């Protein structure tokens, strides 16, 4: 009985392990990207750097605090320490937006959303889509 139980435990370990290894190998080499920043995002970052000078302060507003959080923070990390990027999510009340504006004196706004109407941006630029999301990346000037 003892040997039988041991064989069962080892067999279950092999089953769960080999299955996970195979699935993970497939995901790593056929699904996963080579960089934490996909090529489309690298192009978007280049466009942001071309427009926002070093030291420029950016408000990044994401339409979603769940699906958009990864990309919002990825933009923040990618631009650090060249630019201060303050991340906020919808809904962002006008009073809070005004308070943030006074505190950080944003020159630029970066919006991750399906439509550009969430943030009043001037000279707005559509930088394209985000992977696996309906959101687009909008860059523009943010005047106080």
């Amino acid at each position, binding site marked *: *009985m*003892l040997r039988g*139980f*041991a064989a*069962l*435990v*080892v067999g*279950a*370990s*092999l*089953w*769960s*392990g*080999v*299955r*996970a*290894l195979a*699935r*993970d*190998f497939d995901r*790593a*080499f056929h699904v*996963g*990207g*080579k*960089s*934490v*920043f996909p090529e489309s995002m690298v192009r978007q970052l280049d466009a942001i750097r071309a427009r926002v000078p070093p030291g420029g302060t950016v408000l990044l507003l994401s339409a979603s605090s769940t699906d958009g959080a*990864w990309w919002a*923070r*990825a933009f*923040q*990390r990618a631009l*650090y*320490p060249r630019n*201060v*990027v*303050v*991340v*906020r999510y919808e809904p962002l009340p006008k009073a809070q937006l005004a308070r*943030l504006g006074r505190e*950080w004196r944003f020159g630029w706004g970066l919006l991750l959303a399906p439509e550009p109407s969430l943030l009043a941006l001037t000279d707005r630029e559509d930088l394209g889509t985000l992977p696996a999301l309906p959101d687009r990346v909008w860059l523009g000037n943010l005047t106080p």
Partner: protein
Amino acid sequence: MTFRWTDLLVTAALAVGFAAVGEAILRRRSRDLVSGNESFLVGMAACGAGLLPLSLLFPRAALRVELLVMALCLLLALWRRARGSPSPPAPRLPAGARDFVWLVLTTAVILVAADFTAVNLRYAFLWDGFQIWASKTQLLYYRGALDRLWYPGDTYELRYVPYPPLVSLYEALLQVVRGQFDFDSFKPVFLPFYYSLLVATYGAARAVLSARLAAAATLMLALLPLASTGTAAGAYADMPQAAFVAGVVAAALRRTDSHGGLPWLIGGLTVVKPEGTIIAVVACVAVAYAWSIEKRTVRRLPWSRVAIVAVFLALRLAYVRWASVSDSVYVLTRESLMVAAGRIPHVARLCLVKMLSPRRWGLLWPAFLLSALVLGRRGSAAETSLAVATATAAALFAVIFLFTTWPVELHIDQAYPRLLAQISPAAVVATFSGWQCARQADIEVP
């Protein structure tokens, strides 16, 4: 990931540097893979704990001071070897190396390790790996030392500031040596942790089991999905924490030359992840229990070693106090205690379901529980302590969800399996130990 081959070399050189720090602390030369791994873990523990004092003394240059200390220790280790100071000879081949079954099992472990190596270097970050640990690394790199700030304007994420720094320290040192910061260059750092996990698990198992069973235990650990795939390859800190747990178990069970390293390794649990402090306290109680059973006295406790663990715990508390960030995820108030009491059956059921998931664990945890019963009746003091400590840690990890402000189901789903993965080396060794105990006593499993 788009790492360069030189990143692998720098990562290996840093691992040697950590091991040199460990050798300097333990005042001995590593004589085989297991003791070399112990030196590596001890060195990392010391460097991780030392980062806070160094950050206070050298607010912009703590990382560079750490590198300097590692370089000096490396020179010391080389000088000692050049002087030919005595070192016990290492066996040419591990025991069991001529056993066909051992060779098959060890080859299987190496194949799994090769798979992890390939996947780890290919994988991009998963959530925590990027949002917490790599981000902490970025701040550490650009600020040169630990800081009380997170990214400008962040409030909720401030809770990451007091997270222990070891994984980020290793990643940041790699960036300092390579001379520029690149998120895509971090992944080689997780290879030494992974190899350390396997070596320490083998060392722990070998202390109480035959070479063949020790290899089987190591293979069983390597085949755990949470040890070798997914978040482990996605740069989470749970696998590095598991490496320290394996190191502690190995040092506790290998009695001949490892007890000098044990307090450093227990302390090292506090520098990897926040919950490592819980494991460290459980480990202290387990070691003290085994000591009191074997020596039949607590008066002869090695107080100098107790002091080492106390310093680690004090530094951890100091770091949390210094960061002065209130945790909004776990709240302990009179009201939350009332809520927690009502949640007990629900949390227990959810955690048990996670623990018994065959997809994640095979039959590890049921087998562990049966083995724990056997060890309770027939095991040595150390083996019994190991089983009780592992079960206690698993239970304490469930308790913290009683106080979460997140949706309980979501939080347990995301975190409890990873917490169990941290103590899985102890569970695997206890499982095999209990099985051997049952077989030797020729009793049926209760």
